């Protein structure tokens, strides 16, 4: 596998997209011809280089180098000098929004382009304007391979015009600790049942419906606590509805937690809740299943590929608090069922969402590509 590969992202959030950074580190660990390029170098991600010129110093540096080169660069090509100088043979965009910036180098048809798409790129972006739709279809055209993180997302892309032959699905993954098995802790006697959500406080996660569900359960006399870990622009809205529904005693917002604290919460909880409206795959659901939590979620997008209804959790129609509440009631007083579902979820993650499994699939894919 000696073709030069450039893995490109316009930006990677060191916490929220850590899984992509981890993926890259694992993927590149035994390869010498891979490099990670970001739009701007980040101190938190020292392994990455810039793909574009970000300041005057770099600009002059490359002007100097180019004095000794015979070919002349166009205005647009000038900006992405560092990438051009790397001379990649394969470019893999792990965030599709970097496409426009690197377009100049893609005029060279010999360079193979792989583009990975997230939910937003297919479910939201193309619908925001005609230009966005045109750009999305342009990317579909130019790319040699289109990578989707779920079959649901792939199907949505095909509806938008993606060529099915170019499409491939490789699930995102999490690190699995093979040495230690699953440990599901018992709920201590004097503790209330803990329901947990981990995720950004944005409309896609459906927190309004989560709160309505909690209100229904409270009115039916159930005793529990519901904690939400995460930050986001809907924080005030969520507080507003918590007060309106009078569930301050049951619901608390924990803010953004570190990975370590998230892990602790997952180990302490009994049920994981994610009533999303829009979801391509959801690493939080994968993680929750890995920690042996039964899941209550919506039957939309890529969620049925992570959670098997009636097996590792209960899925119901989105925006329907009554439906979620019914599923909660089935779980809340049935410790054995929770345990069983947690076990099933753990197995599903081991089979479908392990880092090792994902890397194997990428290895196979690149093997084929480099031939």
């Amino acid at each position, binding site marked *: 596998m000696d073709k030069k590969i450039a893995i490109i992202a316009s930006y990677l959030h060191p916490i929220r997209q850590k899984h992509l950074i981890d993926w890259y580190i694992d993927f590149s660990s035994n390869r010498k011809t891979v490099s990670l390029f970001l739009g701007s170098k980040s101190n938190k991600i020292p392994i990455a280089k810039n793909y574009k010129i970000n300041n005057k110093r770099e600009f002059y540096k490359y002007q100097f180098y180019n004095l000794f080169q015979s070919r002349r660069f166009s205005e647009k090509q000038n900006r992405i000098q560092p990438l051009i100088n790397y001379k990649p043979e394969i470019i893999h965009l792990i965030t599709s929004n970097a496409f426009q910036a690197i377009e100049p180098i893609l005029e060279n048809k010999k360079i193979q382009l792989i583009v990975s798409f997230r939910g937003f790129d297919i*479910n*939201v972006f193309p619908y*925001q304007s005609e230009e966005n739709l045109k750009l999305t279809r342009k990317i579909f055209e130019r790319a040699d391979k289109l990578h989707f993180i779920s079959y649901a997302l792939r199907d949505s892309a095909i509806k938008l015009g993606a060529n099915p032959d170019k499409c491939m699905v490789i699930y995102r993954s999490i690190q699995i600790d093979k040495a230690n098995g699953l440990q599901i802790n018992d709920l201590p006697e004097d503790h209330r049942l803990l329901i947990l959500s981990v995720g950004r406080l944005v*409309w*896609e996660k459906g927190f309004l419906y989560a709160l309505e569900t909690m209100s229904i359960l409270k009115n039916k006399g159930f005793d529990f606590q519901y904690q939400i870990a995460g930050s986001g622009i809907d924080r*005030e*809205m969520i*507080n*507003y509805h918590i007060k309106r529904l009078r569930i301050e005693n049951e619901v608390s917002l924990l803010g953004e937690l570190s990975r370590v604290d998230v892990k602790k919460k997952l180990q302490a909880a009994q049920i994981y809740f994610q009533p999303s*409206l829009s979801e391509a795959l959801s690493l939080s659901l994968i993680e929750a299943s890995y920690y042996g939590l039964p899941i209550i979620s919506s039957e939309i997008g890529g969620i049925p590929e992570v959670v098997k209804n009636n097996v590792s959790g209960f899925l119901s129609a989105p925006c329907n608090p009554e439906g979620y509440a019914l599923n909660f009631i089935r779980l809340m007083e049935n410790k054995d069922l929770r345990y069983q579902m947690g076990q099933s979820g753990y197995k599903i993650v081991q089979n479908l969402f392990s880092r090792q499994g994902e890397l194997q699939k990428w290895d196979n894919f690149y093997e084929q590509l480099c031939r």
Partner: protein
Amino acid sequence: MSVESKLHNVKIIIFDGSFKTTPFINRLVKGLALNHQIYILGFNEKLTNPISGVNYVSLGSNQSKLKFTVATLGKLFQSKKFNLLLPTLKKLIQGKRQALQKLNLELALKNIAPDLIHLQWPSVIPWFEVVLLKQEIPVILSQRGFHNNVRPFVDGENFEYLKKWYPKMAGFHSVSKAIAANGDKIWTSSEKIDKVVYTGLPLEEMPFSEAYFLSRPLRIVSVGRTHWKKGYDYALRACKLLKEKNISFQYTIIGGAGDEELQFLVDDLGLQDYVNLEKRIPQKEVFRLIQEASLLLMPSLEEGIPNVVVEAMAIGLPVISTDCGGVPELIEEGVNGWMVPTRKPEAIAAAIIHFMELPLDMIEKVRIEARRKVEQQHNEAQMVRGMEELFYEVVEMK
């Protein structure tokens, strides 16, 4: 408090944070400037349409360093506080913009020596903490909407902050009785001065539209930037219900373009042929556009008093609104408009269907009553007079 007061001419500082302010503040200021000395303090440099008779005082531009320096030094010399020259130069070099703006504010207050300061939003209180502590110049705070009726109740820190500074206000202006009640939840006392002064419209510029046309498909419009408290998601769910009942309609949200959640809902609910999310447009164009509609829908969860409803009623556009905040002080069910409970798409859909089945002369009666209500409760004269009465009350209490 007698309006026939000795104090005919009051020196007032209006503070909104910017020279430009909002249309309703501008209308108020225009009216007040006829009889009183109005100063508007702000951080802007450019103002395209200054109101004549109003003194604009810059506290130091947030954009241009040069203009900032000029403004700062100018103020310093005007106030003759030369002992401050060296420290000021030092701060200018260090780029301590906010500290200097605070100093400029202090100097401006000294130069103007106002009878009264009128703060337009709770968010500008931090600039006047020193003034409020001194209790020499009375300060009035306007209670208009989100920053009074929602934010303090979802943001604990904000609530504590307001609870601390509210008692130091000499008086309050509320855009509705509902929002005055919210203010009482933050702080109240037997001596509290809180006057409800309804927003005033330039009704001569907003003629009642004699010709009204109940279009088919029914053209429904909402106006306002997207925010969760505007309740557009409930409106869209109501549209889904209308579609299922085969009702023919077109719903436009002016200011809705670019909102991911709304876009998602439009697609998810299959409303692409029924709903348009339009970009934000200037007030004048909004006016023209809403006249092409047959119904205004206002689905908000919380409002002080929605100006867009007042405007719609003025020009004769029928309104269905949620009954949040001060809306019941404006709409009387079936008489000059219709109300629905908040967060209930079924109720919105039912109200729209009910509206479509009304005889035209009934709708006409409602339109005329709506205009009458607005003429009586929301004319500019009552707004200016009401604020003047509040000012006199506060100044005389000094």
